[in-house]
């Protein structure tokens, strides 16, 4: 562990906005894409299940 | 009479009968170029810096506008299908059409560019570099554009889509073409940029007609 405290972790040596701005947008994009794909898949399974 | 001459003459004749199409692209070029000094301000130093970039972008946009009519008329009256069915190689037919297209859209731009250069206060040598680069670059624009035109034949909203597809592919031509003028302005040699433009031209001549022919077959089946 190299962070003195949680506050230091979030601050990222003053670069917090840039670092977390990067990681946050990445997370949002990937989670968003995967969620939409999985929801689509689940809906299809439900339709399939109802027909079978 | 060879197939090449036949098709080039035919397309030129058709373009002449519809002079307004070719002329409107040309006037579009002139108007767009003239807009920039009005928007940016008439300061001579700024204009001289901007000149090559503005002319190149305007040439790109004018070429894009004119690409729509490369295959559209033939598609509408069924000639395009006949071309696909004919025993003559389609890539040769496409190459001839692109040649005629450049003669009616690219070449006029090249011939007008010295005049446009004067509008921006360029000196003789700068105009020579710019015109030379456009002479090498505009055929590449027609050739690469033919691929995009072939992919979007008959689609609604095809012209906007065409722009979207073809502009990224135009960027290298734009970069090296404008860089030639930039190099000359900095006192550096222009030959490297002309060499690359020449290479792009040769590569497009070799690959684009065949690719556009493939794209036409895909679009027309």
């Amino acid at each position: 562990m190299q962070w003195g405290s949680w506050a230091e972790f979030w601050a990222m040596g003053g670069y917090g906005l840039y670092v977390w701005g990067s990681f946050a947008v990445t997370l949002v994009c990937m989670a968003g894409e995967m969620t939409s794909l999985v929801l689509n898949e689940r809906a299809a399974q439900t339709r399939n299940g109802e027909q079978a | 009479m060879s197939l090449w001459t036949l098709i080039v003459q035919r397309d030129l004749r058709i373009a002449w009968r519809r002079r307004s199409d070719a002329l409107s692209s040309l006037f579009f070029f002139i108007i767009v170029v003239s807009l920039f000094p009005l928007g940016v301000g008439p300061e001579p130093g700024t204009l001289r810096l901007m000149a090559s970039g503005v002319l190149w972008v305007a040439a790109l946009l004018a070429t894009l506008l004119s690409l729509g009519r490369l295959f559209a008329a033939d598609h509408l009256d069924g000639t395009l299908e006949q071309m696909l069915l004919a025993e003559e190689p389609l890539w040769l037919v496409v190459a001839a059409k692109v040649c005629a297209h450049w003669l009616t859209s690219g070449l006029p731009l090249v011939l007008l560019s010295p005049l446009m250069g004067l509008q921006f206060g360029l000196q003789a040598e700068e105009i020579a570099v710019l015109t030379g680069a456009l002479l090498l670059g505009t055929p590449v624009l027609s050739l690469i554009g033919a691929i995009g035109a072939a992919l979007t034949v008959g689609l609604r909203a095809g012209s906007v889509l065409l722009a979207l597809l073809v502009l990224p592919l135009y960027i290298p031509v734009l970069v090296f073409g404008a860089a030639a003028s930039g190099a000359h302005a900095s006192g550096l040699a222009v030959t490297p940029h002309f060499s690359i433009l020449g290479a792009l031209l040769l590569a497009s001549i070799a690959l684009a007609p065949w690719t556009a022919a493939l794209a036409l077959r895909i679009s027309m089946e």
Partner: protein
Amino acid sequence: MSAINWFKYSSPHSFYPLAGRMVPWFLGAAALFGITGLYVAFFVAPTDFQQGESYRIIFIHVPAAWMSMFIYLVMAGWAGAGLVFNTRLSGMMARALAPTGAMFTFLALWTGALWGKPTWGTWWVWDARLTSELILLFLYIGFLSLTAAIEDDRRADRAGAVLALVGVVNIPIIYFSVVWWNTLHQGASVSLKSAPKMATTMLLGMLLLAVAFWLYSLAAAMLRVRSIIREREPRAAAED
């Protein structure tokens, strides 16, 4: 004669259930590598001597950039296979990969800008690497627009394939841009031939997240190709 008939899976009907079975494994593995990678990125890799903490963006930026190029190559590969062999599933795979590739290209550009501002003082510069990566984004968008604009699926696949293959020349340009031109973007730090020029822990974090992104892309592509199969060939998608 091989005992395994690999071409069995070139039919949408056979591939559909296989893709479905692979998804949870890919996602699980992606999560594993992702969490481990993030742990290394934040709690093992030390602070950079020159850049401070802002360098940690590299753990997203480089994997995203790698994926943006790699996915395009795979997409163009499937597109080419579809053109040459006239296989329906190849075209579907290319269409399935494109959105994820576009997303990673955007992320590479976004994280690059956020890294560039504090480190090199600018959000953007028109050098060879950044410009060619931007062109890559435009190429993805062009592919997605063209395939969306054509109603007939097979024609759309084939037209998109031509476009994708024409654009593939951009990938070596992006990759070698830092060698061929003087760019603001730094040169290659990781190479197959020589020792890496960065600390081992940093390299480890980057590689772990790159693998995580790769597995994520596989999961996304499998899910999306299933969705495409369901749209185009509903009977193939009906489970036996």
